[in-house]
């Protein structure tokens, strides 16, 4: 299985008045064809900027560097903005968090769907319309033909997100980046949208990079997980490995925050991770989680912690050896 997206050592720097902000600091991962990678982390950990950096849609002031950034084997770093625009919406597409504001209020759904197809394919308007109707039906919108003439304000949030998904699929992309696609939706709609994404992914055999802060979503749809904290990946592995035996104290903390049906008793305190994400100025000089970590020791603040690989595609970023991490988790679960 070849990787559709390869990212190695991705950094984003934003110069501001008081120094340089580094919200993404050396992130590496792969997305494979037909698989879903979930990037998990709390607000401000650099998830969204990572996805915008891949699409080359960062704010103007932000600077992107990477050891490697390749889509289906083709380098994305050397290409100019013109060539990037040829890929966006074509080979790689993005679904955003806010369906309410992500569609242009002045144009019909049909116009906005067709425009992506007409931009990247040599097609007539009729062909583009046919494709739009086909995909609207695929994403579960009934009476697709008449929906094309509607404006965004005439649709509910769930419908708009379905339209956004159809729009991302217009050119049959290899990679879909979905940045918290269900956060703004009702819980019942969330499940429908996730189910839809998963079935479309199987049908069109795409790579999906799903950004979320919701571990429940991760458990349901991910093949692989990358946990991000303060601009770094602190743990990565298959969804089974990470949920069954989380190694990094941050991952362990995150998992304790979700109630488990049948196990968490009524009135019992859910876990929480005290403290806040540190400001991301300059280079890392220590473990960025040290100030919130229950197992912090002098070694944690002495130097930056490297990502340690264990096995082919499992890695974690902690000074403790694997056995100690596993023991910590076992103690925490028992308590």
């Amino acid at each position, binding site marked *: 299985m070849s990787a559709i997206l390869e990212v190695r050592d991705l950094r984003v720097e934003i110069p501001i008045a008081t120094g340089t902000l580094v919200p993404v600091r050396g992130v590496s991962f792969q997305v494979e064809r037909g698989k879903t990678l979930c990037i998990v982390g709390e607000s401000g950990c650099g998830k969204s900027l990572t996805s915008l950096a891949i*699409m080359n*849609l960062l704010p103007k002031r932000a600077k992107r560097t990477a050891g490697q950034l390749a889509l289906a084997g083709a380098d994305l770093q050397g290409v100019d903005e013109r060539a990037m*625009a*040829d*890929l*966006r*919406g*074509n080979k790689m*597409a*993005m679904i*955003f968090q*806010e369906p309410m*504001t*992500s*569609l*242009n*209020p*002045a*144009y*019909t759904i049909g116009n906005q769907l067709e*425009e*992506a197809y007409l*931009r*990247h394919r040599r097609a007539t308007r009729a062909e583009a319309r046919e494709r739009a109707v086909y995909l609207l039906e695929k994403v579960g919108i009934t009476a697709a033909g008449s929906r094309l003439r509607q*404006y965004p*304000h005439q649709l509910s949030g769930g419908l708009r997100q379905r339209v*956004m998904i159809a*729009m991302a699929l217009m050119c049959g992309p290899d990679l879909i980046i979905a940045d918290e696609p269900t956060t703004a939706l009702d819980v019942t709609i969330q499940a429908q949208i996730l189910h839809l994404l998963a079935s479309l992914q199987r049908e069109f055999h795409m790579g999906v990079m799903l950004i979320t802060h919701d571990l429940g979503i991760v458990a349901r749809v991910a093949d692989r997980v990358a946990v991000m904290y303060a601009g770094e990946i602190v743990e990565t592995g298959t969804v089974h490995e990470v949920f069954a035996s989380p190694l990094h104290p941050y991952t362990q903390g995150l998992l304790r925050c979700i109630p488990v049906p049948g196990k968490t008793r009524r009135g019992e305190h859910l876990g929480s991770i005290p403290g806040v994400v540190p400001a991301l100025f300059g280079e890392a000089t220590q473990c960025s989680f040290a100030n919130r970590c229950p197992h912090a020791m002098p070694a944690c603040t002495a130097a930056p912690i490297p990502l340690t690989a264990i096995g082919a595609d499992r890695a974690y970023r902690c000074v403790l050896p694997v056995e100690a991490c596993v023991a910590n988790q076992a103690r925490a679960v028992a308590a």
Partner: protein
Amino acid sequence: MLVYSLKRLLLACLVVLTVSGITFILTNAAIDPAKALAGDSASAADIDAIRKAYGFDRPLPVQYFDWLGSALIGEFGESVRMRRPVATLLLERLPVTMSLGACALAFALLLSIPLGVVAALKPNSAVDRVALSLSVLGQALPTFWFALMMIILFGVILRWLPISGSDTWLHFVMPAIALGYYATPAFMRLTRAGMIEVLASDYIRTARAKGLRPPTVLFKHALRNAVIPVVSLAAVQFGFMLGGSVVIETIFALHGVGFLAWESISRSDIPVVQAIVLLISLFYIVLTLLADLLNAYLDPRIRVA
């Protein structure tokens, strides 16, 4: 869209009716029509005779409905001073004023929208600062002074443009600039603010994520939404321009409606003044209506309201 248009149209008719009533009352309160008609040297008996002959002794509401009835069929009476039908006078003068207003508005929009877009693309850049200075200057300069300065520079010193009359299109260049320049700052600031806001919106990010080319993103997705408030303002400004043409037409001796208004007011020519006020308010109302409809076309969310 049809229901929306009809509703707007009905509202516009009511406004015209109100304006005509107020105009009628105000002119009759300000000037005694019989005295104005009789002239300064007339005796009290002459004035009384005229009052009876022209029906000015009837109650005001009766006179108003009488006048309104004739106005509805385009009959505005006869000019007291010029002894010619008001409708003919207006029709003669109207093309000049309309051309002036249209040229002024076109000048203002063609200058301010591109400037506003460029300023919005690079906020706080040199272009933005120059545009800002222009707009401050535009709002600070009195129209008549700006017009006179232009006459001195382009008419007297450089001799590029004619300074009075309305024979060729060249005669309209300076009046249109003088009249239009005043509206430019507001258009430009509104375009700039609208573009900055729209360019930061989520749907612009979506458009870029689709791989659309920068001109498509800028003109199709951004400008369309950014100019919606400019359209409303343009209609209002066009009404102001018709009013402002009184000053400009007098300066440049353009024989339009504005010049006629100035002449008639100074000579207490009531039928002409009433007709002109009604005409200009009618324009104002039609323009506002057009702006509403154009807005509804540009912004589909308005149509359902």
